[in-house]
């Protein structure tokens, strides 16, 4: 399976080069190259007397070629250079990064010499055929079915966490995706994330339409070891936005005897005059925990282990965000996650300064407070200073 997939990708690469040869004069119309380079300095505080720092140079290269009116190839590469004290403290970082979860190994660690690790991965590599009312996409791609900002129970293929602010693009999945577009914003979509067996694959269908000024969607899937069904809507209550996503997962083994898992998220958002925006969301995860977890590895629980089935470790999670524009160059936001039961709060203030059209400076902090061994205390903070150049 892996080999077929690789052959297909190689074929698409070579095909793209051949067709460019023939039409050199239209080079610019046919090929788009863009991306960014970021430098981020992280200072992590566990206790006030121990501060450790780390550095990350993060580059993304996006390549898009219009091979014909209907065929597009997209390849995106993520390159990162880690160096500093945190990198030194994790001797397994290189090994962890090397692993590619897809069907084809497109992840490479080119240097792993503590405290310096260089990692590259192709997280998009697909070909797309687009006709008037249908599209077929094959390869590593992002399939995003979420409608909410904070929590997306419908995002079966690539669950997203706002905590992971430095990787909005998310890893791609190796999949085949077919989209059919009907009238009046209706569409049907089928997608298969190829695994080595039925229980390591996702096979899903999504039906979308717009009615009564609401976007609606329904989905059904073979989701790894579960059967999943879900629905979502996005509309308004007066001038506020109202969005809800629900997914239900039932294990295939002992289908009738076992308990399923419900993942539900609802959001209200509103924009005030002068650019202040507020978002209030709630997430219910029926399989979540309802008491303190006493784990010191916090960020793993926020970012590492999330899936559409379990977006947050707690049964009930509340999210609130206020963002505002001070002037066109400067904007800020303040977000809070609170996990009931686990009794843990995460605060995320952030300021972004647009230096000019291409350069941006961002200062963000993440600070967690929670119950650890029956005491409510600070559970660590990190401050991130990031410079970004887009091209």
């Amino acid at each position, binding site marked *: 399976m892996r080999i077929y997939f690789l052959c297909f990708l190689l074929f698409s690469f070579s095909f793209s080069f051949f067709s460019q040869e023939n039409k050199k004069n239209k080079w610019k119309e046919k090929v788009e190259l*863009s991306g*960014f380079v970021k430098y981020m300095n992280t200072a992590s505080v566990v206790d006030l007397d121990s501060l450790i720092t780390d550095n990350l140079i993060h580059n993304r290269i996006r390549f898009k070629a219009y091979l014909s009116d209907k065929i597009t190839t997209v390849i995106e590469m993520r390159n990162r250079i880690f160096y500093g004290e945190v990198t030194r403290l994790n001797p397994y970082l290189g090994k962890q990064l090397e692993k590619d979860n897809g069907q084809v190994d497109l992840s490479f660690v080119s240097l792993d010499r503590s405290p310096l690790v260089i990692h590259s991965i192709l997280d998009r590599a697909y070909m797309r055929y*687009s006709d*008037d*009312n249908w599209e077929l996409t094959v390869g590593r791609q*992002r399939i*995003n079915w*979420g*409608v909410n*900002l904070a929590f997306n129970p419908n995002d079966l293929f690539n669950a*997203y966490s706002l905590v992971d602010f430095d990787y*909005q*693009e*998310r890893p791609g999945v190796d999949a085949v995706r077919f*989209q059919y*577009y009907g009238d009046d*914003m209706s*569409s049907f979509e089928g997608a298969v994330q190829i695994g080595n067996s039925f229980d390591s694959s996702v096979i899903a269908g999504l039906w979308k339409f*717009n009615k009564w*000024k609401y*976007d609606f969607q329904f989905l059904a899937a073979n989701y790894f070891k579960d059967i999943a069904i879900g629905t979502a809507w*996005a*509309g*308004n209550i*007066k*001038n*506020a*936005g109202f*969005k809800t996503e629900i997914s239900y997962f039932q294990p295939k083994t002992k289908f009738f005897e076992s308990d399923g898992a419900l993942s539900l998220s609802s959001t209200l*958002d*509103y*924009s*005030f*005059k002068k*650019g202040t*925006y507020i978002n209030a969301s709630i997430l219910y995860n029926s399989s979540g925990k309802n008491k303190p977890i006493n784990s010191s590895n916090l960020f793993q629980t926020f970012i590492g282990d999330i899936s559409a089935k379990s977006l947050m470790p707690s049964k009930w999670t509340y999210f609130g965000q206020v963002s505002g*524009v001070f*002037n*066109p*160059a400067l904007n800020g936001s303040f977000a809070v996650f609170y996990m009931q039961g686990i009794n843990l709060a995460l605060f995320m203030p952030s300021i972004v300064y*647009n230096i*000019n*059209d*291409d350069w*941006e400076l961002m200062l963000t902090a993440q600070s967690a407070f929670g119950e650890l061994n029956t005491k409510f205390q600070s559970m660590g903070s990190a401050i991130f200073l990031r410079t*970004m150049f*887009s*091209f």
Partner: protein
Amino acid sequence: MMKKISILIILFSSLNIYSQTALEIIHKADAKLRGESSYTEMTITIVRPKWKKTMTMKSWSEGTDYSVSLVTSPAKEKGSVFLKRKNEVWNYLPSLERTIKLPPSMMTQSFMGTDLTNDDLVKQSSMVVDYSHKIIEEEIVEGLNCWKLELLPNEEATVVWGKLIVWIDKSDYMQLKVEFYDEDEELVNLMNGYNFKMFGNKKLPSKIEFIPLEDEGNKTVIEYNSWEFDKEIPSNYFTTQYVSRLK
């Protein structure tokens, strides 16, 4: 008695004609800007006393209900799309590959940091349907003979302005100047059109500036690099499914 009545009738009917004309003028100016459908390429510059930002955009529109705009530069925002269908608005973010439906309250917000609101960009028909119109005098603007019109919002209209004063030139129905007053009749924003050019067979201002008067040194300048009218636009351009395919 008969004479008095007929004078009154003549007076009323001429008043009626006069107000009809005001509506007609606004209607003509608006219809000229829109056509059945339109395609524009524009450069938007946000000017602040010590800072400046330039964006380029492509926009497609059909009638008053459907419009879609694609940001083509700067690099960081390239590929972002704003889609409007009647009263519904969506925003596509290419880095997330996700389309998010925006709350209606977002419409009164600044469009991407400019001095225009989202409403200003997508709700252009408002001047015709949401206001009552009256010609108050005639003036010369940019060397052209203009009607000066006063627009007052209709009671049921959901508009943010308390009053608009609009200058429209008599030969080409171009909107050369608009004064925006708040509910307390205080002048808050100014719009000027200049650099007249022929776009197809229509003469229009190719540069428009919006000036918020309360902040000195702030303005937004829109320059139309291309403006095509009555071009056939496939209806799927105005769907959430197509936003990632626009180019």
